[in-house]
């Protein structure tokens, strides 16, 4: 038995296998994922595993190595998030997102740090020796909202697109702030005396870290786009370039002590458009599938390891400190969101309602990033206290906040009263007016708010496209362009399906179409009076509700589990395009 020889890869594969089997297990029982978010279940599995290992070996199970987390587990998730991030709502709300990410995080850090320091002063808790600097350091790592946890939970509660992008964008971009503050306080801990010049250096460092990360990311992204221009003859390795360049951007940024997360996001967003135009369709699908797969595996592994690492002797359970940490995290986040939203609403037409504010505040989940950062702390005698507090905060946010956020959202949503069902005519006219308003908004460029976007488009079409795209065509009418894309993908499918509009054989059309036409609505020669029949009316309303095209996108476009291009709004868009092209 030559176990030593294969031990490392064998164990890694076993862990990944365990993670994937656990995922299958959850989805076999359909009701479970809707009640308890997947992340909770995974942590639970991890806890069990940790308990087993502890019982067998009688010593602490292997703690998740911070290096493994930061270098191998985190990048795929962030890459997936950045690549599929819907850029229009992201850039529309970029001001708000940055405000929450930067100012909000700083507010939280100092708030939590100082209030915990205040708690430490109380003699009864035996915490005198935790200095202010230590508290600030702890604050800096616990304050940041975690993208992995937020993604996992928000997926299942179906909030509107804008809210989703706000919390999610914030969780991604606050990495820059976290990195700077964490490193700053850590270096302060080791310095004998702190001068004010150091503080200013810290502030300047923040800009360097953030903007430097963006620059590194964009450089790699545009290089990737340029490389794919020449890959026409070696289609097979095209997907590899996407992953290599993104990973390189992450590692390079980390090497220079810049923000790796911001870099990889900038890389993904920068290269997406050009790479997708250059690479073949099959490579494109491969890229999408691999990204989803890797990020899924990473995500699962992270939560399981979180559970495993909780068991063991790494903790010092000083309950007052821990409880106050949890309380302060909640309070300061809520306060921060309230104050910042007040400012945001002064400047924007689209206000953030109080229900939205509640979700933003309550959805500030902490996750594995805090956990890894706390393990990276230098060894000092109170480190175990911090580890314990971090663990409890993470478990609290993921379990309690994650599980209860959905019922709370539903509860709040129910408060908006549903009026009596609209009549058929109203349904149609209202949808008509919705489409009209949406169209006018698009024509006006959202009332001229697209100023910078238009400038960027101009720059793009004049210079970037010529360099980065392999085939640069004249810009044709959008309908023609999009239709050509469609044609390439679905020519065969459409031919097999026969004439469009008669016998739909596309699977999604089948499900809804035949189902309702089989509902024996005797339509053919009904006289006018018969349509007063309530059954017929109900059927008509059902048909309309199911078949009227929705306006643009009202739900989040980013979904962890499905690929873009397979969701229902896209199907509708394709149908509309085909119809309009026929009429051209």
């Amino acid at each position: 038995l030559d176990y030593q020889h294969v031990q490392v890869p064998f164990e890694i594969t076993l862990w990944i296998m365990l993670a994937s089997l656990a995922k299958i297990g959850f989805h076999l029982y359909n009701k479970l994922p809707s009640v308890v978010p997947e992340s909770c279940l995974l942590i639970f599995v991890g806890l069990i595993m940790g308990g087993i290992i502890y019982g067998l070996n009688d010593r602490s199970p292997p703690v998740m190595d911070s290096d493994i987390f930061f270098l191998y587990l985190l990048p795929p998730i962030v890459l997936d998030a950045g690549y599929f991030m819907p850029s229009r709502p992201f850039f529309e709300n970029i001001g708000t997102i940055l405000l929450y990410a930067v100012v909000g995080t700083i507010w939280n850090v100092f708030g939590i740090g100082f209030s915990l320091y205040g708690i430490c002063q109380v003699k009864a808790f035996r915490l005198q020796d935790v200095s202010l600097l230590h508290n600030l350091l702890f604050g800096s790592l616990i304050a940041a909202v975690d993208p992995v946890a937020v993604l996992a939970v928000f997926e299942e509660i179906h909030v509107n697109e804008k809210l989703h992008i706000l919390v999610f964008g914030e969780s991604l971009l606050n990495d820059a702030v976290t990195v700077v503050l964490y490193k700053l306080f850590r270096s302060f801990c080791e310095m004998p005396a702190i001068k004010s010049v150091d503080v200013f250096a810290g502030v300047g460092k923040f800009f360097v870290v953030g903007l430097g990360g963006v620059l590194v990311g964009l450089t790699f992204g545009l290089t990737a786009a340029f490389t794919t221009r020449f890959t026409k003859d070696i289609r097979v390795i095209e997907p590899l370039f996407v992953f290599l360049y993104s990973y390189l951007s992450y590692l390079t940024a980390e090497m220079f002590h810049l923000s790796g997360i911001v870099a990889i996001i900038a890389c993904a967003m920068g290269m997406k458009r050009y790479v997708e135009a250059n690479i073949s369709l099959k490579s494109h699908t491969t890229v999408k599938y691999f990204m989803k797969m890797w990020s899924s595996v990473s995500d699962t592994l992270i939560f399981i390891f979180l559970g495993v690492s909780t068991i063991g002797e790494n903790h010092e359970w000083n309950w007052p400190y821990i409880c106050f940490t949890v309380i302060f995290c909640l309070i300061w986040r809520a306060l921060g969101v309230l104050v910042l939203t007040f400012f945001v609403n002064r400047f924007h037409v689209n206000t953030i309602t109080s229900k939205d504010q509640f979700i933003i505040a309550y959805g500030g989940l902490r996750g594995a990033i805090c956990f890894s950062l706390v393990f990276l702390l230098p060894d000092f005698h109170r480190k175990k206290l911090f580890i314990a507090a971090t663990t409890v905060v993470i478990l609290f946010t993921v379990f309690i906040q994650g599980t209860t956020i959905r019922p709370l959202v539903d509860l709040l949503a129910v408060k908006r009263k549903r009026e009596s069902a609209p009549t058929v005519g109203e349904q149609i006219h209202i949808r008509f007016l919705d489409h009209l308003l949406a169209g006018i908004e698009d024509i006006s460029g959202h009332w001229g708010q697209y100023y910078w976007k238009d400038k960027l488009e101009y720059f793009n079409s004049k210079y970037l496209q010529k360099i980065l795209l392999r085939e640069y065509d004249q810009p044709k009418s959008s309908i023609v362009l999009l239709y050509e894309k469609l044609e390439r993908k679905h020519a065969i499918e459409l031919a097999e399906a026969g004439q469009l509009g008669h016998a739909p054989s596309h699977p999604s059309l089948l499900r809804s179409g035949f189902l309702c036409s089989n509902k024996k609505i005797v339509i053919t020669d009904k006289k006018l009076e018969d349509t007063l029949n309530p059954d017929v009316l109900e059927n008509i309303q059902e048909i309309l509700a199911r078949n009227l095209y929705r306006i643009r996108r009202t739900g989040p476009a980013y979904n962890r589990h499905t690929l873009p291009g397979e969701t229902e709004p896209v199907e509708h868009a394709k149908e509309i395009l085909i119809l309009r092209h026929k009429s051209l």
Partner: protein
Amino acid sequence: MGSRASTLLRDEEIEEIKKETGFSHSQITRLYSRFTSLDKGENGTLRSGGNQCACLLLYLLISKMRILKHMTRINMCLLHREDFQRIPELAINPLGDRIINAFFPEGEDQVNFRGFMRTLAHFRPIEDNEKSKDQNGPEPLNSRSNKLHFAFRLYDLDKDDKISRDELLQVLRMMVGVNISDEQLGSIADRTIQEADQDGDSAISFAEFVKSAARFQKEM
């Protein structure tokens, strides 16, 4: 490009548009920027020289001598249907064609900035301070009933002030998925007319339309 746009658009014009449509100064300049960006053409090249000369003369005559280097990017101040069709979100809007047609006056193929603004004025977002204005003045262009009138005109292609069954069918066909048969659509149209029709002419007049759309609260 914002400052360049405002030098191309004369102050007097801005005032006139402001009076006619109610947009604010900054809104007008931003929308002009949007108007010109829609008219980018193939490579942002210059359009036919004739119009360029005319604009140049007018510019010189009426305004003060401003910096003429802005003129190298002057666009022909007109939009065509293709320019609208280039907007990607509009391409997947079921009513895209009709909305585009609403911008072009009867029988014409191009629209200038004034016409563009006039149409958009119907949907100008209502500011907070307007809600409390006096009811005595002329009804603003973006009042609820004017918006509904605009929508009604999109339904009513033959302009007889009535939405007939055929017109309704056409619109329904555009708005609904491919897996509804013609018979089902016909019955839906019949039902709609039946619900709304009060004077028994099997068509929907504007008053009946307004009543049906009474529930449409939103930004109106």
